[in-house]
């Protein structure tokens, strides 16, 4: 196993060298690659050279970073009652203020017919994820609209490209994305900046672009020939970024980005960023921003600098996001307490409430002695 791992690492290093060689070789081919990249669903180049490196920009003495994260309890048909819970945690961190950050947890219990069903489909899985994502963004909108003139960055955990399952009707999918984009609009109007922070990103959209570039932008050939960089994540290619520096900007090739976000002025751009201090091993994150941030140098520099400042508090991950996750977390004791509260409320209301036989016997057999 050890030998196999060593061989694999050697092959990986060779591919990495090849990818970086292509990044330099095709650095100025971005304009010619834009159209084929869209077609091939590879990272879409912007006007910046592919291999450009932007050092850490200066940041204001005082600025605010707001982060939100969510967690949920899925409806359980084996439980005493059908309900779900969404918990949104958020932290508003005012850099340079010396103040304690504002920590908040907000819960939303869904139990009515309107809460539990949407166009006849039960609200669980992806539908519940979307409600949580909208809840996270709504909290960030509230903060951005109340922060006044202080430069403010709203950080989302993960991508800002909303994930909506394809099994939803086209109109319903569009409405979901529309609701999300409306919140991005409100952040834009507040004068704040918004971005999604993706830790240890696994995307290979830039390596797909490099494969396409090596084939002269020929999308047919690119789809027929195996991409030698297929298993190489973009973050590995950008591990040479100096501490605090970001990569070139690219545009997300996701279909929903092209179809919905672009049309409404929020086309999602991204860059890779080395968040660590000088002398540390690189930690590469991906930061996604809407077009109106990507095309405004001041806003882009603010989110670049603020994300690094936040990450350097912990060493490698935005402090506000770590705390928002902690505030959103629903522990097993809290789940149990909520179950008890729901059962008590049902008894008081005279509604018979019993778990399913399956749930009942699971509890009996797993209790132990």
């Amino acid at each position, binding site marked *: 196993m050890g030998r196999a791992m060593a061989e694999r690492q050697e092959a990986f290093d060779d591919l990495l060298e090849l990818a970086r060689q292509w990044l330099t070789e095709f650095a100025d081919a971005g304009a010619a690659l834009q159209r084929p990249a869209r077609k091939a669903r590879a990272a879409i180049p912007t006007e910046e050279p592919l291999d450009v490196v932007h050092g850490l920009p200066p940041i204001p003495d005082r600025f605010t970073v707001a982060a939100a994260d969510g967690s949920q309890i899925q409806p359980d048909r084996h439980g005493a009652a059908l309900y779900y819970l969404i918990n949104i945690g958020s932290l508003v961190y005012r850099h340079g203020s*010396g103040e*304690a950050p504002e*920590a908040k947890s907000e819960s939303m219990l869904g139990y009515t017919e309107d809460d539990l069903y949407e166009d006849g489909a039960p609200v669980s899985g992806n539908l519940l994820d979307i409600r949580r994502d909208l809840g996270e963004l709504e909290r960030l909108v509230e903060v951005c609209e109340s922060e006044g003139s202080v430069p403010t960055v709203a950080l989302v955990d993960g991508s800002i490209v909303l994930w909506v399952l394809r099994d939803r009707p086209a109109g319903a999918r569009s409405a979901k994305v529309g609701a999300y984009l409306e919140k991005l609009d409100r952040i834009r109007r507040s004068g704040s900046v918004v971005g999604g922070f993706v830790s240890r990103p696994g995307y290979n959209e830039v390596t797909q672009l490099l494969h396409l570039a090596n084939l002269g932008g020929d999308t047919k050939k690119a789809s027929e020939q195996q991409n030698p960089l297929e298993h190489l994540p973009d973050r590995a290619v950008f591990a040479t970024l100096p501490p605090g520096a970001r990569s070139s900007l690219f545009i997300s090739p996701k279909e929903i980005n092209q179809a919905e976000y672009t049309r409404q002025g929020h086309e999602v751009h991204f860059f890779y960023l080395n968040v660590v201090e000088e002398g540390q091993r690189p930690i590469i994150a991906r930061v996604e921003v809407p077009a109106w941030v990507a095309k405004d140098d001041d806003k882009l520099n603010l989110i670049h600098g603020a994300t690094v400042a936040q990450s350097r508090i*912990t060493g490698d991950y935005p402090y506000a996001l770590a705390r928002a996750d902690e505030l959103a977390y629903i522990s097993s004791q809290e789940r149990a307490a909520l179950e008890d509260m729901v059962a008590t409320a049902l008894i008081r209301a005279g509604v018979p409430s019993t778990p399913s036989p399956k749930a009942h016997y699971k509890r009996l057999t797993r209790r132990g002695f």
Partner: protein
Amino acid sequence: MSASDLQVGRVLRASTRGFALGCAVMQPEIPAFGSFVRAEGQVSGQAIYGLIYDVSVEDDPFVRQFIGANPPEEVVRDQRENRQIPIEVRVLAVGCGDGETIRHCLPAQPPVTLDWLYQCNDEEVRTFTERFDYFRLVLEAREVPADELLAASLRVAAAARPESEREGFLIEAGRELVRLMAGEPTRLEGLLRRLRA
């Protein structure tokens, strides 16, 4: 038990001499040394009374990350004011009750793991300290800072009384200590000095 009972935490381990509990609390809510607490006994209506003699802040991996990193003031204040701190509290058992009377003695049985421990309210503290028989249990306990604990508990008990009664209560407690510790004048002097502080 009343609805206003303040839960301190759940019992982690217990013996008839005392017990330990674990909880996560905000910094202003950390239970105080010398406070009176009560756990439910194993029989309904029974209570076990104790004195908090040790409060330790447990290791927190998130906080550990900032040790030596000179974190910004905002982080220090966030950790202190917004985050719950995992603590372990140790309690010396000093009495038990059956719902009608309180006796200053070790309980026949310890509380059970995961039982709630409650902070005694002023009325309970006044009732418990109407007599001073628990002094001997504290003074003879080897694993606790006995003199400090007794002095702290008497300050708590005095504070639970109207201001006009506090001095008289402490003088009575002092007399009882003189009776109990007549053979240990140096220790007695130190304890009385602590009471006056």
